[in-house]
């Protein structure tokens, strides 16, 4: 294994005289329970970190964290009560609100509107985009990695792969700029020349219709180094998996080589993908902000630009939760795929 950051590498699973699948399910369940606890601990830490960063701010921004939805008191009163509490008290009050879905109210973006109202629809739009982007990135990365290994002697392929690196070094915002400016110009030009009609989604950033949406996914999958990273990591994972010592035994027993390679490859690949999510979320923020598309990233950027701390914090926390949950699922899948990760004690 290469340097995998996120994998929780050793799990203890009970061994009993049960059938393999029974053991697996039981083991995974207990593992899931333990990981859930770890995830909750980590999320509490994350919220604490966010809270402390905000408290470190020189301005009075943190007072915006006061609860906003309760109608019995006015916002000012709530803010005053909040400010008079101790640091720990403020944190607990805030966390209490967050856990019950009360992220406070927006202070600048849509003044007075509950943050949760803004976040909820945005979350699903972004999640779709993110998942599609990651999937495409992984798919293209796997393709490129496989090609780079099997066709590594072919200069044409090597040039192609070099160009892939090159395209991947282009930041997302440049892609968006090129897409919006160049794409619109191109469509407009073609329409003016009567080569085609103006499509419904024109001009580009206006609506996440399918075609622009697909382009956005492609940008997310390629830009900001995503594709290059995926290709490289997958390539090294594949090499490791295929060059592992057990391949001798596997081949000598006529066991299907591709299946074994895939099973060895999967956990490492999943842990690379889950590490990549953190970066792709960043790209998502830039993408949505540059396109002006509604979504968690757009909200986060607008909130940062307008100093709307409740919205920004809410978005950050929501992303952290999603990230941890995906991580957990990936870890479970990886453990299911590779028995070596279920270390017996």
């Amino acid at each position, binding site marked *: 294994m290469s340097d995998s950051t996120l994998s929780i590498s050793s799990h203890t699973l009970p061994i009993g005289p049960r059938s393999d699948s029974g053991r697996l399910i039981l083991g995974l369940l207990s593992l899931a329970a333990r990981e859930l606890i770890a995830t909750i601990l980590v999320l509490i830490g994350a919220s604490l970190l966010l809270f402390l960063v905000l408290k470190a701010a020189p301005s009075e921004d943190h007072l915006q964290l006061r609860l906003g939805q309760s109608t019995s008191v*006015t*916002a000012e009163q709530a803010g005053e009560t909040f400010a008079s509490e101790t640091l720990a008290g403020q944190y607990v009050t805030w966390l209490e609100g967050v856990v019950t879905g009360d992220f406070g*109210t927006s202070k*600048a*973006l*849509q*003044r*007075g*509107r509950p943050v949760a*109202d*803004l976040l909820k*629809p*945005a979350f699903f739009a972004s999640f779709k985009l993110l998942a599609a982007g990651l999937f495409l990135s992984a798919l293209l990365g796997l393709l490129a990695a496989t090609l780079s290994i099997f066709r590594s002697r072919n200069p044409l392929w090597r040039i192609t792969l070099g160009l892939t690196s090159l395209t991947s070094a282009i930041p997302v915002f440049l892609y968006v700029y090129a897409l*919006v*400016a160049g794409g*619109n110009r191109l469509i*407009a030009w*073609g*329409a003016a020349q009567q*080569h*085609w*009609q*103006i*499509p*419904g*989604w*024109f*001009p580009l*950033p*206006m609506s996440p*219709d*399918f*075609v622009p949406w697909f382009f956005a996914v492609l940008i997310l999958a390629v830009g900001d180094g995503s594709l290059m990273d995926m290709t490289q990591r997958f390539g090294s994972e594949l090499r490791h998996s295929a060059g592992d010592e057990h391949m001798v035994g596997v081949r000598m027993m006529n066991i299907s080589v591709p299946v074994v390679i895939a099973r060895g490859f999967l956990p490492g690949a999943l842990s690379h993908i889950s590490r990549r999510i953190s970066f792709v979320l960043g790209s998502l923020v830039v993408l949505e902000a540059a396109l*002006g*598309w*509604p979504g968690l990233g757009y*909200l986060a950027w*607008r909130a940062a*630009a*307008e*100093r*709307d701390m409740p919205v920004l914090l809410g978005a950050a926390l929501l992303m952290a939760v999603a990230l941890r949950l995906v991580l957990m699922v990936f870890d479970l899948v990886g453990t299911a795929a590779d028995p070596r990760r279920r270390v017996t004690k």
Partner: protein
Amino acid sequence: MKRVLALVILMVGTATSGMAGLRYAEATAPTSLNPMLVADMPSLRSTELMYEGLVSPPIAGEVEPALAKSWSISPDESSVTFNLRSDVKWHDGTPFTAQDVIFTIEAGKDPRTATALGAQFEAFELVEAPDDHTVVVNFRRNVLNPLLYFDFKILPAHGFPEGYVAAEAAIESPIGTGPFKYKEWTHAGEIKFTRNANYDRGNTGGIKEVEVSPVPDDNIRNELLRYGAVDLLPQVRPKDIPAFEELTSVRLYPYSTLSYSYLGLNFRDNPLLRMRVFRQALISGIDREEMLKAHYGNRGTIISGPFPPASWAYNFDVKPWPHDRRRAEALLDEAGVSDTDGDGIREFEGSPVSLRIVSLAQSEVQKAVVLDLQQQLKNLGIGADVRFMEPMAWKKAVFEDHDFDMVLAEWTFDNSVNIYTLFHSTQSGPNQNNFGGYANADTDRLLDDSRDAANSEMLRALYGELHKQLHNELPYLFLWSLNRYAAISSRIENVRLHPFYFFSYIADWTEK
């Protein structure tokens, strides 16, 4: 080639057909749908769709009936009696009564209401409702043209049980009586309105829906209109006008907004800016004509005072300060601001001069203007830091925290061109219009006099005086007034624009 693309298009669905209604794009999303809290033009334009006043927005000093059928002004012009329409319902079905008018005026006067219209409501003293459809408004003092005080929009009393308009009420289920109903505010910032079926003032229009979407990029906004994705841009950049003039699908509607751009100054804690000589040095040192030419293609006028040049109040006898670098430098030296250590930046009382300029990051042109300004200041030996901000953050910095030295901004006026709130020393609190904290006894006196002016001749004379005084006093560095053009798709017909409220006549617009 054609076939493949056609296939793609088929998959995507057909183009713009089937989209009914009027879609327009603003640079920034409206920040409020409550007319009492409105402080920016996009919000003002969108509230105009939903709300009505007692009388129609004045144009050339004349008003027409709106929520009031008729009115009578008392002979001494100290009170107005309105007969209200009895057939009007709020969008939620509640009937409109005199209580709503009383509530609106009371709320406007309530200090807890964070409104910029405070001064207007200040003029009213007593409001009475003899019956459900009659309202008598008494003025605190005699006013010149009492009807012009009634262009504010009426809010529903039942929508505000607290009795005032809290800042948080910006978008809480807005209800009005106007031609369009609020439908939804998407999280993307688009606001949708649908036609109010109960609205009947004898209008001929046929627009079913209105949708406003924020599109920050000037170029994209233009492309949107050019290819029919929106129908209207309230304002196009001067440099884009030639391109639109060539298009048959778009018509340009010039409208003389009463507006001008200026550099607002903060008088609160900068001793330099409080010195008149320094301000005069600045206005002489900045080459406004060159800037207007470079950034706006010369589509505008350099101004000399606090009134828009298209208004009746503008004093053409006062000429703008000419650009005179030498005079500026002399004045700076006179003010004691000189470069003692030879680093190119002048010092004042031992420390180098540095101004904090705040601007909206709205468009490239605005950015270019601010950077140009910074460069010109630097050439004069005055350092300047620039901060480009997003709208809400900008508003907070300028109107609430007063955290700036100089701000590039623009005022748009209605026909009364009332500058009382802009320069009167009593109007300098948080969220009030005199954000620079300018205070001058002479100005205050002239403003007070003008408010009490008995007739328009007198008012004109007083405003002329005021113009001259502020030209010398320079509470702002007055820059220019730009020509405005709305670009509207030729699909929309029967268009008439109000120079300030913009959508006042939308009930008459039709679509092809």
